[in-house]
C-alpha cells in the first residue's frame, strides 16, 4: 500500500477477482485511489486494466473482492449505477451522440424541465456555464458531431464529472489527440484533480503517464505487480514492471551500420503528387529497412500512399530492376510485388467481422483474381502457418478479427501481405496503439523479414523504434523529404534535429 495515509482513500478495491471461461482475468487485485490524485493504470493489452475498470464500474460482475467508496461498501450493477455512486468513465472512443446538440449530450437523462417540458434556455445556460469551466467557448446548441474529437472528449469528461463527480476513469483519452490537444486535456485533468476528484488514467504513452500521474499501478496477466509514486520510479523500472523483461531494442543507440548489400532494385525518380508530397528520389535495396520519420501530417503517409498507387503520382517514374513500371493504382503496386499496411487498421485495414483466415487470404485472393478461389484447405494451412509464424494469439483461425487485441490485429494485417510474398512492404505506423510486448514482437518480425531479403519502408512516430531496425532513415517535413540518415548517423537526436531544424528553417 502507498504511504499516503493522511487522507482516507476515495476508492479502495481489495481482492478483486474476475474469472472468464478458461482464464483468470483478474486475480485478487488491490487498488486504492486517493482523492485529488491522478492514478495511472498500466499494463500490456490483456493485463487486466479494462477488466478492472469494468469491475469497478459494474459493467462486469466481479467474482470476488470488495469495493469501498469513501469507506462505504458499494456494488455498482452497471455503468449508470456506478455513475449514481459517483464513478464516471470516459472511453477512448468518445461515447456521446454526434447527432444531438452539445447541451443535450451534457444533460441527456438529466435535462432541466419546467412543467414536464425540457427548458431549452435553461439547458443552454447551464451548458455554457459547465463548458466555460473547461475553457470551451462553443455554442451548446450545435451538433456534437461538428466538433473535433478533442472537444468531444472534453464534453464527455464534463458530462462524467457533472453526473458523478467523485471518481473519473479515463480510458486511453489521448489515443486520438495531437500534442496540443493532449496539453489542453492535461490542464483539464489537473484542474479536476485540484478540485478533489480522484482520476484513474489509462494510457499506452509512458511519457504522458510520467507527465500527469501522481501514482502508478501496474498490472500484468491479471495480477497486481505494484503501486508506486510516479516520482520514485523511472521509465526502465516501469517497463520492467509491465513486461518483466528488458526491452532489448531500447538499448540500441544508433541504426544498423551494416548496409544492406547489393544494388537498388527499386528506383523512384522525381516521384510525387502535387499537394500531397513534393517530388522525391528513393532507392530501395533488397533486404533493406528504410525508416521514415516526421511529424504527423508531414507527408509520411502521403509518401506511402503515393508509392503504393493509392494516390496516383503526377510526376516522376518508377523502375523495378531497371525496367520502368506503371504505378497508377494499388492493383499495379500489388502486381509489382508491393504490400501496404496502412496506418489506421480499423478503417483501412482489417475487416473486423471476417475471420482471421479470411482476412489473411484477402490480398492473395485479390492478386490471383476472384475467379480462381484459393482452395479452402490451402487457406486453412496458410492461416495456421501465419498464426504460428507471427505468433498471432487467437483461439483459432475462424475467430473474427475484431475480437483480437490491437497487436494481434496488426499481425493479421501483416500476414495478409506476407501471404502475397511481397518484395517490397510498406508499413505505416505498424506499432501504433499496441502494447509494449506486441510492439517488440513486431520489431523483431521486421528484422526477420529483411533478413529474408524483403525490402521494407517503415513509417513511425517512435524514433527509438526507427533506430532499432533501420538501415536508412528519411526525414520528412512539410511534405518534402528533407534529410537522409545512414548507419551510425541514425540516432534519435539526429532525427529530432532534422525535424526540428527544418521547422526553424521554415519559421525564419
Amino acid at each position: 500500500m502507498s504511504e499516503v495515509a493522511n487522507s482516507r482513500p476515495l476508492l479502495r478495491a481489495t481482492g478483486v477477482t474476475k474469472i472468464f471461461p478458461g482464464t483468470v482475468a483478474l486475480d485478487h487485485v488491490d487498488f486504492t485511489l486517493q482523492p485529488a490524485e491522478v492514478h495511472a493504470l498500466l499494463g500490456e493489452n490483456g493485463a487486466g486494466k479494462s477488466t478492472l475498470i469494468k469491475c469497478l464500474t459494474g459493467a462486469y460482475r466481479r467474482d470476488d473482492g470488495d469495493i469501498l467508496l469513501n469507506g462505504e461498501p458499494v456494488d455498482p450493477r452497471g455503468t449508470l449505477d456506478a455513475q449514481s455512486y459517483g464513478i464516471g468513465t470516459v472511453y477512448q472512443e468518445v461515447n456521446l451522440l454526434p447527432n444531438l446538440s452539445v447541451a443535450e449530450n451534457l444533460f441527456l437523462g438529466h435535462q432541466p424541465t419546467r412543467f414536464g417540458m425540457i427548458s431549452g434556455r435553461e439547458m443552454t445556460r447551464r451548458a455554457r456555464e459547465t463548458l466555460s469551466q473547461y475553457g470551451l467557448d462553443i455554442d451548446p446548441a450545435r451538433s456534437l458531431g461538428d466538433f473535433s474529437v478533442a472537444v468531444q472528449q472534453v464534453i464527455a469528461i464534463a458530462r462524467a464529472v457533472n453526473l458523478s463527480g467523485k471518481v473519473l476513469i479515463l480510458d486511453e483519452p489521448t489515443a486520438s489527440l495531437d500534442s496540443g490537444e493532449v496539453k489542453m486535456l492535461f490542464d483539464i485533468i489537473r484542474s479536476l484533480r485540484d478540485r478533489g476528484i480522484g482520476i484513474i488514467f489509462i494510457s499506452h504513452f509512458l511519457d504522458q503517464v510520467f507527465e500527469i500521474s501522481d501514482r502508478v499501478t501496474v498490472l500484468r496477466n491479471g495480477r497486481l505487480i505494484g503501486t508506486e509514486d510516479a516520482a520514485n520510479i523511472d521509465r526502465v523500472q516501469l517497463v520492467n514492471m509491465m513486461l518483466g523483461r528488458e526491452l532489448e531494442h531500447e538499448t540500441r543507440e544508433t541504426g544498423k551500420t551494416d548496409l544492406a548489400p547489393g544494388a537498388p532494385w527499386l528506383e523512384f525518380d522525381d516521384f510525387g503528387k502535387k499537394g500531397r508530397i513534393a517530388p522525391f528520389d528513393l532507392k530501395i535495396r533488397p533486404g533493406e529497412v528504410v525508416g521514415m520519420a516526421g511529424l504527423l501530417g508531414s507527408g509520411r503517409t502521403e509518401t506511402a500512399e503515393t508509392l503504393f498507387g493509392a494516390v496516383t503520382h503526377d510526376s516522376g517514374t518508377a523502375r523495378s530492376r531497371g525496367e520502368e513500371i506503371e504505378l497508377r493504382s494499388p492493383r499495379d503496386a500489388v502486381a509489382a510485388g508491393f504490400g501496404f499496411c496502412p496506418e489506421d487498421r480499423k478503417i483501412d485495414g482489417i475487416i473486423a467481422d471476417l475471420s482471421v483466415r479470411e482476412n489473411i487470404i484477402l490480398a492473395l485472393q485479390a492478386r490471383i483474381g476472384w475467379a480462381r478461389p484459393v482452395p479452402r484447405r490451402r487457406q486453412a494451412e496458410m492461416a495456421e502457418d501465419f498464426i504460428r509464424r507471427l505468433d498471432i494469439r487467437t483461439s483459432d483461425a475462424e475467430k473474427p478479427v475484431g475480437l483480437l487485441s490491437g497487436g494481434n490485429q496488426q499481425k493479421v494485417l501483416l500476414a495478409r501481405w506476407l501471404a502475397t510474398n511481397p518484395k517490397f512492404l510498406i508499413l505505416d505506423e505498424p506499432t501504433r496503439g499496441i502494447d509494449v510486448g506486441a510492439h517488440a514482437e513486431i520489431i523483431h518480425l521486421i528484422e526477420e523479414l529483411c533478413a529474408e531479403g524483403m525490402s521494407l519502408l517503415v513509417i513511425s512516430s517512435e524514433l527509438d523504434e526507427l533506430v532499432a531496425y533501420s538501415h536508412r532513415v528519411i526525414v520528412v517535413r512539410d511534405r518534402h523529404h528533407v534529410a537522409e540518415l545512414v548507419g551510425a548517423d541514425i540516432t534519435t537526436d539526429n532525427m529530432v534535429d532534422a525535424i526540428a531544424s527544418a521547422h526553424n528553417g521554415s519559421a525564419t
Partner: protein
Amino acid sequence: MNSRFLPLLATVAIFILAYAVCYAQFPAMLSTRVIGNLFTDNAFLGIIAVGMTFVIISGGIDLSVGSVIAFSGVFISVMLRDTGLHPIPVFAVLLLITTLFGAAMGATIHFLEMPAFIVTLAGMFLARGMAYVLSIDSVPITHDFYSAIQSFYWLMPGKGRLTFIGGLMLVVFIAGMLVAHRTRFGTNVYALGGGTHTAQLMGVPVARTTIAIYALSGFLAGLSGIVFSIYTSAGYSLATVGVELDAIAAVVIGGTLLTGGSGFIAGTLIGVLIMGLIQIYIIFDGTLSSWWTKIVVGMLLFAFIVLQKGLVWFTGRNRASAAGTS
C-alpha cells in the same frame, strides 16, 4: 449555420417553389379552400407520418401502419353495426388495441433483437388479416355522431373550411413537435437514432423508449384509422394499401434521415403537404394521369436521398479537414 437544419430548409424551399409554380399556372390554388382541402384530404396520412417520423428518427421503420388503418376502419364499422355502442367507447377500445399492438412490436424488436423491418412486416400482414377476418366487404358507417363530426368545420377567412379531421392532424403535429423537442422521451428518440449502444451507455432507457416509440406509432395509426373512417364513412379491409410507404416518403421528403438520428416533425408536415400539393395540381390540370403523383414523389424522394447523402459526405469532409488543421 447548423447543418442539421439544411434538409428542413430544402423541404420548405421546395414547398414554396412548388406552390409558386402552381399559383403561376392556376391562381385559384392560393386560397384557403385549397389549403383546407389539403389538410382534410391528407389528415390520415399526416397523422401516421408523425408516428413514422418518431420511428425513423429512432433508426427504425413501421410498415404496419397502413394495415392498422384498414383494421381500424373495419373494426369501428363492424362494432358500430353489430353492437350499437356509441363511437366514443369504440374509439377508446380501438386506440387501446392499436397502442398495445404497437407496443408488442416494439417489445419484439427490442427483446428479440429483431430488425424493425421484419417485425413490422409481420405486423402488417397480421393487421390486414385481422381486418379480413372481421369483414371482407366494405361496411358503411351511418351514425349520427359521424354525420355531426363530418359537418363540423371552422370557416377560415376566404371561405376555406378547416374540418375536424384537418384540425386534428394539425393538433397531432403540434403535439408531436412538443414531444420531440421538449420532452426527455423526444431526446431519447434522437439518442437511439444516434446509436443504440451509446445511448444505453449514456443512460437512455432503451427498452422503454423503443416500446414507447412503436406504441406511439400504433396509437397514431389507430387515430388515423378513426380519421380515415370519418373521411370515408366506411370500413374496408382493402383500404389504404401501401399508405405506410407514402408516410415514409413524406417523412424522407420532410428531411428526416432514413438512417435515423436526425429530422423534424415540422419537416414531415411539409412533406405531407408537398405530396398533397402534387395531387391537387393534377386535379386542377385535369389532363394528367393521377400516376404522375407517384412519378413526382419518386423523383422528389430520389432528390432527397441524394441531398442527404451529399450532406453527410460534406459534413464528414468538413470534420476531417477541421481535424487535419487543428
